[in-house]
Each structure stands twice: as C-alpha cells, then as structure tokens.
C-alpha cells in the first residue's frame, strides 16, 4: 500500500538551531512527494515537492527537503528555525493511478523554543 510515515509526534527545537522533520514513504513506482504546513485552525499551505531531478528540493520560507531513494526518505529541513515555524507539518505522497490523490502522514507538531 502507498503510504508515508512521520515517526515523531512532536519535534522541539531551539530558535536558531537546525530543524529536521522526518518522513519515510512506501510507494510503487517513482514517488511524487510533498510537504505541507498547517497553522492553527487554518488550511494546509504547500511548502515544496519532489517530482524528479535534483534530490535536494528548495521550498518556501527557507525550507528544503532531501529525497533519498535508497532510504525511501524525504526529510524536511531548515538551517535555522524561527519561532514562527511552530506549526503542524505534513508529508504526503501521490497515489498512483489516483487522479492526483494524496496520502498524508499523521503530521508532526514542531515547537520552536525562543
């Protein structure tokens, strides 16, 4: 079955420190992978995607993600976290033959401590 796993419930990081949010995937064929962020009581905002090409993908707000095929991972990273990065982060994979349907991970709460 096509799925993504976000193993951590919450990630705590001090402001200014590097931030990493982990995601692993299981999908047949070439994966289309996405990261979204959600602020309280808001819809999801698109951060970045990997379709093909360079394994390091740069996105919005200084975030980037690295596609690693051998480890089936797509971890989200930011070199220096801001307090305003505190939010819920979702990894997603596009389902094959699925009219662009996505399967989402459970989400990771990121808390950036001032």
């Amino acid at each position, binding site marked *: 079955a096509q799925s993504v796993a976000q193993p951590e419930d919450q990630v705590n990081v001090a402001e200014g420190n590097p931030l990493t949010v982990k995601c692993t995937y299981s999908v047949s064929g070439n994966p289309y992978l996405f990261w979204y962020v959600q602020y309280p009581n*808001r*819809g*999801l905002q698109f951060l970045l995607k990997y379709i093909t090409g360079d394994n390091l993908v740069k996105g919005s707000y200084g975030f980037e993600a690295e596609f690693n095929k051998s480890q089936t991972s797509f971890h989200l990273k930011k070199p220096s976290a801001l307090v305003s990065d505190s939010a*819920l982060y979702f990894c997603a994979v596009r389902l094959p033959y699925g*009219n*662009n349907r996505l399967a*989402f991970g459970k989400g990771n709460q990121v808390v950036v401590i001032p």
Partner: protein
Amino acid sequence: SQTIHQWPATLVQPVGSPLSLECTVEGTSNPNLYWYRQAAGRGLQLLFYSVGIGQISSEVPQNLSASRPQDRQFILSSKKLLLSDSGFYLCAFTRYNEQFFGPGTRLTVL
C-alpha cells in the same frame, strides 16, 4: 490566480441535524476537487474526490455524501449528523501536481 473558498468557517450542529458545507474554486476550470476531514488537529483523511461535474468517488464508507453540481463547486452533505462527524473539514483542488487547500470549516456536533 486561483483561489478556493469554504463556508461556513465554523458550525455547531446538534446530533441528527443535516449538514451542508460548500467549497468553490475561482480562476481555474475543470479542477480535481477533494474533501478531507481532520480529526483532533492531526492526520488528514480523504473523504471524497471529483474529477468533473456529477462525478464523485468515495474513499471511505460513512455518514457523509458529496456532490458537484457545477464545475467549480463541491458540496459535502449529511442527512443526519453523528457525534463522530465533528472535525475540521478541508476542501482542496489540484494544479500542476500540487494540491491547494481552502481555509477549512470547523464542525462541532453536540
């Protein structure tokens, strides 16, 4: 540019009452449309998707239904709400392999 609207923003309904949530998209034609539910502030569950007018696919059996009466309108309905229908409902559309989400509707069933 494309935009997506949802209303109402919040809704409190008694058990057994009907439901109608609306989603509209502007600035694009023939979009794929999706309804998700997010319970307890976490994981998203895909409820329905639509690739065209009158075409609805259901992902999970449940107390809800969806309709697409117009190209850019997607409606989520129920005849009788259950307590378990409470949650945050998100509508989305697809453009260039990306899904874009509306602001959501917070539904509380009492």
